[in-house]
């Protein structure tokens, strides 16, 4: 209703003089800080880039006025949201790595009528638990995409009968495992999850898990471990001969290039890496100019390839730019917070995996998987991914308004 009137003006009045002020919420300390650091890098780069072109719609610069450390816990985060809403000196909140934090902070921001662009957490429960949040949008794909994408991959694999899952012991890990298991059952795959393991977030010694998995010799290993955890796990797995004992692995934690870089030559080859979104530096690197620019600039600036934290941030800023443009074009004025979030609903914009589409306030990302290969043109001496498999967003995300778990329970097998 808000956006129905199209003023159709070219003249835009009322663009505030001061910059568009954003506060970011990311981990600056604790185990997930790795992810936060990437996001921070990308955001610095993107803000510079946008501001070089004059700012949002070329007119209003962006300023990151503050970064709040998620490690302070939800109590503090919620209070800070309240303070920002109260003082009215911040235009938008952006970020959040942890799903658990998103579940606590998003409703609070909405309560305060404070616009919140959620960029990273994947919990499918965000909008299902809290429907009608008018001030919240999420540009990160739901973790359904990764889990259901993995189900689709399994359907295509031959000779997979036994599966072991290993996921971090919190919302992200449990959600993935549950959806993956339910999905497999729904599509009638002839596979059995023989064991599910949940090491703690930040675990440093996986050798007991590794040897148990190696012992069980499953046909497939599924994991949503991410960040430093997946690097440690894979490296200890290589050491313990685990990847020789399992035929295939699907590693769908949000990690990407940093994992391949830290493992270097010892990355096993019989793995699929990927998950929600096509966030790999060499995926459609040549086909998509925007992507190439993003990767090159990031590499130049930080001497490393972007990981998923960086890509998530990129998607966030894309949505912001699109949203502002759209809102302004409709109302002919700088949008209020509510208008801005509304404008970010149901839009689509370019991304490495093609169109990144929002179903309502929630992005629907495709699933992309690839295999490690040395055959790539990027200037790094470690493997990147190749042999990409792409699964469209519509196939790995529930239709708008359908509860994810219900939908997963009723997945149809892919035929042909």
């Amino acid at each position: 209703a808000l956006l129905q009137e199209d003023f159709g003006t070219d003249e835009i009045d009322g663009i505030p003089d001061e910059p568009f002020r954003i506060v970011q919420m990311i981990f600056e300390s604790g185990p997930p800080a790795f992810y936060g650091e990437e996001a921070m890098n990308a955001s610095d780069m993107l803000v510079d880039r946008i501001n070089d072109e004059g700012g949002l719609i070329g007119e209003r610069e962006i300023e990151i006025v503050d970064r709040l450390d998620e490690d302070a816990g939800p109590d503090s985060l919620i209070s800070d949201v309240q303070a920002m809403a109260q003082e009215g000196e911040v235009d938008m909140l952006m970020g959040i790595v942890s799903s658990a934090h998103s579940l606590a902070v998003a409703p609070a921001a909405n309560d305060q009528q404070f616009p919140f662009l959620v960029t990273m957490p994947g919990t499918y429960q965000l909008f299902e638990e809290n429907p009608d949040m008018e001030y919240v949008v999420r540009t990160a794909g739901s973790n359904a995409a990764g889990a259901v994408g993995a189900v689709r991959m399994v359907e295509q694999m031959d000779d997979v009968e036994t599966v072991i899952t290993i996921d971090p012991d919190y919302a992200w890990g449990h959600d993935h495992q549950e959806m993956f298991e339910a999905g497999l059952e729904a599509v009638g795959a002839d596979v059995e999850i023989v064991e599910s393991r949940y090491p703690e977030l930040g675990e440093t010694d996986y050798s007991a898990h590794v040897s148990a998995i190696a012992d069980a010799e499953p046909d497939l290993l599924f994991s949503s471990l991410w960040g430093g955890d997946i690097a440690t796990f894979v490296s200890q797995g290589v050491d313990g001969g685990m990847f020789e004992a399992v035929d295939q692995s699907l590693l769908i934690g949000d990690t990407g290039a940093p994992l391949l870089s830290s493992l270097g030559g010892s990355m096993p080859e019989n793995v699929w890496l990927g998950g929600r979104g096509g966030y790999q530096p060499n995926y459609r690197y040549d086909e998509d100019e925007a992507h190439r620019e993003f990767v090159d600039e990031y590499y130049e600036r930080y001497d490393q390839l972007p990981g998923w934290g960086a890509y998530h941030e990129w998607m966030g800023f894309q949505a912001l730019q699109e949203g502002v443009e759209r809102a302004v074009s409709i109302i002919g004025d700088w949008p209020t917070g509510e208008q801005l979030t509304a404008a970010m609903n149901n839009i689509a914009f370019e991304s490495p995996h093609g169109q990144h589409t929002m179903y309502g306030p929630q992005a629907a990302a495709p699933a992309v998987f690839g295999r490690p290969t040395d055959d790539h043109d990027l200037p790094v001496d470690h493997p990147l991914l190749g042999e990409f498999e792409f699964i469209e967003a519509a196939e790995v995300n529930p239709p708008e308004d359908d509860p994810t778990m219900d939908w997963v329970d009723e997945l149809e097998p892919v035929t042909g």
Partner: protein
Amino acid sequence: MPIESLLVNTFNGLYFAALLFFASVGLTLVFGILNLLNMAHAAFYGLGAYVAVWTLNNAGDVTTSTVVLLAMLVLVIPLVVFVLSAVLDKTVFAPLYEIEHVYQLLATFGVILMLDDVIKFIWGASPITVDGATDPSRQLGAIDLMGVSVSAYRSFVILIAVACAVGLYLMFVKTKLGKISQAMSEDYEMVQMLGINVNRVRVLIFSISVAIAALGGALFVPFATATPAVTLEYVLLSFAVIVIGGLGSLKGVVVAALVIGMVRSFGIAYFPALELAIVFGLMALVIIFKPEGLFGDEGVVE
């Protein structure tokens, strides 16, 4: 249970026990002898890990010789931390010896928070790992142990732990230092009045303890990742070890590290759902049924 997996799990258990031993033996010495509950002890384990990654990654320009790299881990890093801790003992920790345990816990928790940020300031918040070229664990590869292939590097770590335990045992049983330590654990002031330079003994024990923790961190890191979370994880684990073993008991640390190492290794392998509960469950059971720990009332060495 096939014999191979029995062996592999035992090996894993031993390796984990070795790490726990490194992380906690100093804690028990510092508590047992100097009567300081040093929560920040595990921070030195974390520090050792970071220093080791940094050293190994920078060593690449000079050498990739396995022997030299191992020597760096085993000798150089502990030595550096030894010296550093002697300084810290005189400055940060000196006032803590006088106060009650509760306050020691809190003040040293403050030290953890500070050290944490110092590490973050120097090395950033992202996990860092040892480069392949200078990673002794990759260089050494695997060896055959009764028909099972196990990491040579990890076997080396286990051996170092054993050597360390034996060394400490001899040091605290066979020498004057042992008896003086025992006496200091009971009545610091009285030992002083018997003409013994307790400050020197204190610095020595504190620095040895901390250096062993750093050694553990250094040895641990080629096979894992240095992250800021290591400290917090090992704070709890090392307290669990010394409480299960009995505060202040060297033998207790060895036994408790072995018990936790094995229970965890086999527990995770065969009952993965229990992982989170294993250490705490064990700790609760031991304290409930043997409140002073397995070897709690026997003094430092027996």
